[in-house]
């Protein structure tokens, strides 16, 4: 019995067809069910228990959550994560965007720059983290060496144990490594802007800056939204970098939420508590995603979009073909 019948409305499935359909879907479904769907359920259930991995789990209601919300270290991790998010939003994404914008304006070396910019993003976060740790080293680290050579020697700190800077020391590799990813995303987004739009704005005398903010950015609004979500959720999930550089220390000064969760669960063996932290991580990520979506979609009603829609309608009417 043919399943794919062009034109026939009724499709009758033979037993063999059913076996085939189920059989092809089964492996993916099973894997996702066992290793993703069930764990989500377990995470929530576990968050209400006290479990150390060895003896059976003991149900203890919302004790974990209460302990978590009065725990200073937890909130320190949250604020650390927020600092990272701010850094991501103010440095990583804008820089990626700026690089993409500029690279479109040069004539030679486009491919070279593109390859080099994306290079750090493909490496293991662990390697980048370790590399930075070695660079921060007091004895042979290049960072101190460069600073002394350039004359900023008085600003040298013990990057990895000084509580006032360790958070930034640990955030920098994360921000650094993924500028290239956002660069590439923005680049492909900018490339989808039809050249007539850019040319007409140039003819009208708009400067590059004006073109960028008033035309290019709004046209890639969806991509900007995706980048924001990616950047923020990436900051929340970041683990390899802080773990290999300082292990989250000193104390919890350089722990982000993910590091805090790991330490409580796999180092202190408080799996129930760790699950509660995990649940909060998921909720934060979901909340931020939804808030961002709402905020970005609200501006769809702005004057700009109304004008644009009108222009498009008029334009297509003038050229004689309907959208």
């Amino acid at each position, binding site marked *: 019995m*043919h*399943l*794919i019948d*062009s034109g026939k409305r009724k499709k009758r499935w033979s037993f*063999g067809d059913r076996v*085939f*359909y189920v059989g*092809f*879907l089964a*492996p*993916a*479904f099973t*894997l*996702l069910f*066992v*290793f*993703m769907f069930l*764990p*989500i359920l*377990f*995470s929530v259930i*576990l968050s209400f228990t006290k479990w150390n991995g060895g003896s059976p789990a003991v149900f203890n209601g919302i004790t974990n959550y209460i302990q978590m919300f009065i725990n200073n270290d937890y909130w320190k991790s949250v604020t650390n994560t927020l600092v990272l998010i701010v850094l991501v939003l103010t440095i990583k994404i804008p820089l990626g965007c700026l*690089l993409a914008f*500029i690279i479109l304006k*040069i004539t030679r070396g486009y491919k070279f720059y593109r390859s*080099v*910019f*994306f290079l750090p993003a*493909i*490496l*293991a*976060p*662990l*390697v980048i983290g*370790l*590399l930075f740790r*070695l660079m921060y080293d007091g*004895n*042979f*680290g*290049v960072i101190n060496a460069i600073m002394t050579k350039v004359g900023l020697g008085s600003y040298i700190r013990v990057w990895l144990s000084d509580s006032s800077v360790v958070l930034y020391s640990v955030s920098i590799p994360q921000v650094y490594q993924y*500028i*290239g*990813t956002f660069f*590439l*995303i923005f680049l492909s987004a900018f490339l989808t802007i039809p050249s007539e739009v850019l040319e007409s704005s140039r003819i009208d005398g708009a400067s590059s800056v004006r073109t960028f903010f008033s035309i290019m950015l709004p046209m890639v609004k*969806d991509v900007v939204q*995706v980048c924001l979500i*990616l950047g923020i959720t990436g900051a929340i*999930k970041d683990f390899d970098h802080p*773990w*290999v550089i300082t292990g989250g220390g000193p104390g919890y000064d350089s722990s982000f939420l993910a590091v805090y969760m790991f330490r409580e*669960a796999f180092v202190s063996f408080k*799996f129930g508590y760790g*699950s509660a932290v*995990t649940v909060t*991580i*998921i909720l934060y*990520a*979901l909340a931020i995603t939804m808030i961002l979506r709402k905020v970005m979609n609200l501006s769809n009603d702005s004057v700009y979009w109304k004008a644009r829609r009108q222009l498009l309608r008029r334009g297509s009417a003038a050229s004689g073909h309907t959208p």
Partner: protein
Amino acid sequence: MRKDGIAMYMIKRQAANVGKYSFLTVFAVLSAFPLAWMFISSFRDSTAILSEPFGLPNRLDGINYYTIWVKGNMYVGFINSLIMATCSVAVLTVVATMAAYALARVKDNTLLYAFFSLGIMIPAQAILIPNFQILQFLNIYNTRPGLLSIYVTNNITISFFISYAFLKPLPKELEESAYMDGCSKPRAFWSIILPLAFPAISTFGILGFLNCWNDYLMASIFITERRLYTVNLFIYTMMGEFSTDFGAIFAGMSIAVIPILIIYVFFQEQVSKGMTAGAVKG
């Protein structure tokens, strides 16, 4: 000189050009410098690195590589990572394309599609603890199949999306002509669709390989036996064992990085597409 004359325009344009190129070059240097420093230092002796961090090696001496590869047993990690990454990609290809084929070409189902989209929304770390339990329960904790299941599951969603988006718009005539010739459905999949889907497979295959090779967190939790350690786990423990032999550490990191670089050099398009695919699909 007139302010709006041609000469002024040319000068301004040159200045802008210089500005753009220097900005880009600064970033290129920043992007490449740490890696370059790592490679160069891996050929130097530890004492030399201590005294002069920036120097160039005296001789192209591979002693550090020998130290870390043989004495540090890095070859174990390298082989393990290779096995895990390639097997994960192989399983991933089969599983993801089969599911995408069923939904894209046979019968679509929004519920199933939504189910397969779970992966995008859930951060992999969120399910660490329960997976820890589940793997133990299934008796595959600290085994290759165990880590493999985790790796494949982590990459299924994006692979499925890429395959689905690729397979859906293909013309129906492809399979129809096969069916009319008496070809069975699985056979049509293997011989016709799968080879055609090669661009999609290469995209998510490389992405999956990268994710598996670069992973540290999953391996550190689900593998506890040294002989199964991946290359990143070795790097992490190497920090403790070889804490004074910096040259060896640099060599170890270089070893971990080289396969990725090779892939990048030869498959740059796919790598770029893969890494941003997750983002743009959003």
